[in-house]
């Protein structure tokens, strides 16, 4: 019965939406990259860099939205590096991605230590406050859960909508999807596969960084090591789970977040006394693997994902 009580509480759903927000940004970023044909394993490190860049900008005096823009820019820089190495040069996307993750993570930690050498507990910033949407936030259950969030959460949902709209309703989206399915056809149309793919990786990486910035600017209000803690890798699983579609990936992120919020609450119930807490922490990862297995039966992987395109060789 305790589970039912949890599921019917507004605070649970509010937490789920909050936990989902950074995942939505980063998952959309990864989805854009992969739809254009590039697997971006730099996601984990780019989220770390975004978390730091946005927080540092605000800490040194910019306003919050400038901080978001700074995070986006930092992500785009790492995206540019990733794109340059993997698209025109066609280097292994696995190796480059992991290299970017290591570079972005260690460069961020280094920058943090250099910027704040004497600090033992990370300073807090005035982060985004919840904004209650008039009228809608008065709805029972839905109001507190959906319409009393911080502006970055609303932005996350807007980004998901915009991603879906761009991919399926605009010529640019058509070209991007074709770059990941049939690059030769894109080239035949007189468009540049290299340009499309690089643009997708750069913008996608920017979104991943904003996902990281959500952690420092809307959730924890300060930066600390290990704060991204595998969320990037989860987003890669979410893209597969969502069969490379923004709507399904959004749903996946919400499901995952609901599950994460549930496990935290279950730990505090009678179950938590009997079962080691590590089991609860493991469940989201196990769930991700199970979801991948289930989804694999009807996976619609972009046909040219991870296949470098070199003009003139085909």
């Amino acid at each position: 019965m305790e589970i039912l009580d949890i599921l019917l509480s507004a605070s649970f759903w509010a937490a789920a939406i909050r936990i989902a927000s950074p995942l939505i940004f980063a998952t959309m970023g990864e989805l854009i990259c992969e739809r254009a044909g590039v697997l971006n394993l730099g996601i984990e490190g780019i989220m770390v860099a975004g978390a730091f860049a946005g927080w540092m900008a605000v800490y040194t005096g910019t306003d919050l939205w400038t901080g978001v823009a700074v995070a986006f820019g930092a992500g785009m820089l790492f995206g540019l590096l990733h794109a340059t190495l993997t698209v025109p040069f066609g280097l292994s996307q696995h190796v480059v991605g992991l290299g970017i993750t290591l570079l972005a993570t260690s460069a961020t930690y280094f920058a943090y230590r250099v910027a704040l050498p004497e600090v033992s507990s990370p300073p807090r910033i005035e982060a985004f406050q919840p904004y209650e949407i008039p009228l809608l936030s008065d709805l029972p259950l839905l109001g507190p859960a959906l319409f009393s969030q911080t502006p970055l959460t609303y932005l996350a949902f807007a980004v998901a909508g915009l991603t879906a709209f761009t991919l399926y309703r605009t010529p640019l989206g058509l070209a991007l999807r074709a770059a990941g399915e049939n690059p030769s056809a894109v080239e035949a149309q007189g468009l540049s596969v290299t340009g499309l793919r690089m643009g997708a990786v750069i913008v996608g990486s920017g979104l991943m960084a904003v996902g990281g910035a959500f952690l420092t600017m809307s959730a924890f209000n300060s930066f600390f090591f290990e704060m991204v803690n595998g969320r990037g890798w989860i987003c890669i699983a979410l893209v597969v789970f969502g069969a490379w579609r923004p709507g399904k990936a959004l749903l996946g992120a919400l499901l995952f977040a609901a599950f994460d919020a549930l496990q935290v609450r279950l730990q505090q119930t009678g179950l938590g006394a009997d079962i080691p807490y590590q089991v609860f922490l493991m469940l989201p990862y196990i769930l991700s693997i199970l979801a991948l297995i289930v989804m694999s039966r009807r996976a619609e992987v972009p046909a040219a994902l991870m296949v470098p395109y070199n003009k003139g060789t085909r």
Partner: protein
Amino acid sequence: MRLEAIPAPTLTRTLGLPAVALTLTVIAASGLALVAGGDPFAVLGLIVQGAVGSKFALLETLNRATPLIFTGLAVAVAFRAKLWNIGAEAQLYGGAVITVVLGTGFLPWPAGVLLPVLVIASMLTGALLLLGPAYLKTRLGVDEVVTTLLLNFIALLFVSMLLEGPLKDPMGMGWPKSERLIPEARLPRLVDGLRLHWGFALALIAAAAVWVIQTRTTLGYEMRAVGQNPDAARFAGIPVGAVILKTAFLSGGLAALAGFSEVAGLKGSLTLDLSPGFGYTGIIVAMLALLNPLGVVVSALFVAGVFVGADSMSRAADVPTYIADILLALALLSMVLAILLTRFRVVRD
């Protein structure tokens, strides 16, 4: 721009470009040291000195290289067959756990029997941990990058659960730490009086064995063929699925030996910080070695030296030790680019 294959790269190109890459990496790292308020030349000197400057430093580097040789070999073997094993960290802990389960008195056997049993048990455990993702890849097409990565998190939480539960040392003052191995389960020192243990020798033997497998056996040929072109390999009658499973078995087993050797050779018990990311660093080691098993030994020594040297530099010069990770990430990225440019040249349209 596009890339054009170079039919016969010159020796200057083959050796020069990687040298340029490493030089640029070192310059970038010196720049970072400068930013952090250190004297760049002194910092680099301190890194080298800290890595190989004394007998103690050198042995520390060799010790640190040992698990990296194992995980580097594991990654090299798998990547060569295009099995993207990112889960060496999980397999490492698998080997460590089974070593502690069997080696803390459960098997009261003499060292001559117990140690080989522990080696085999570790390898089997690690192999099983990679066989799952490999099986999912071959049967259902589930991407092994994601599954092996997620398994790392699951494995670490599982170890944490064991260390606070069944494997907890009752005398451990509440720390999540296992009991100590019995003396028969400990790898002896390689040389009396020095901290270097037999795990290092075992790692060298493993590298040689992997080299023999890759260059002198049918399995090695099949693994290469599958890695180069799975469709062509299938057409040539190579059982691609079976080869991938065998590769997984070998790769997982090698990674697990890193856990065995750290516990039995160095630490004597299992804690959650047994590996500061040896599984992930193994990927860098393997890539810098161009997936060559003998090259893995060289690059593991280099990477271990950078870490050990940076640790000692960080204490002496007050520059954040993360500079080691930055250096390695830059080395990795610039090396893969340099290696590509030895085989291709950039042509402007």
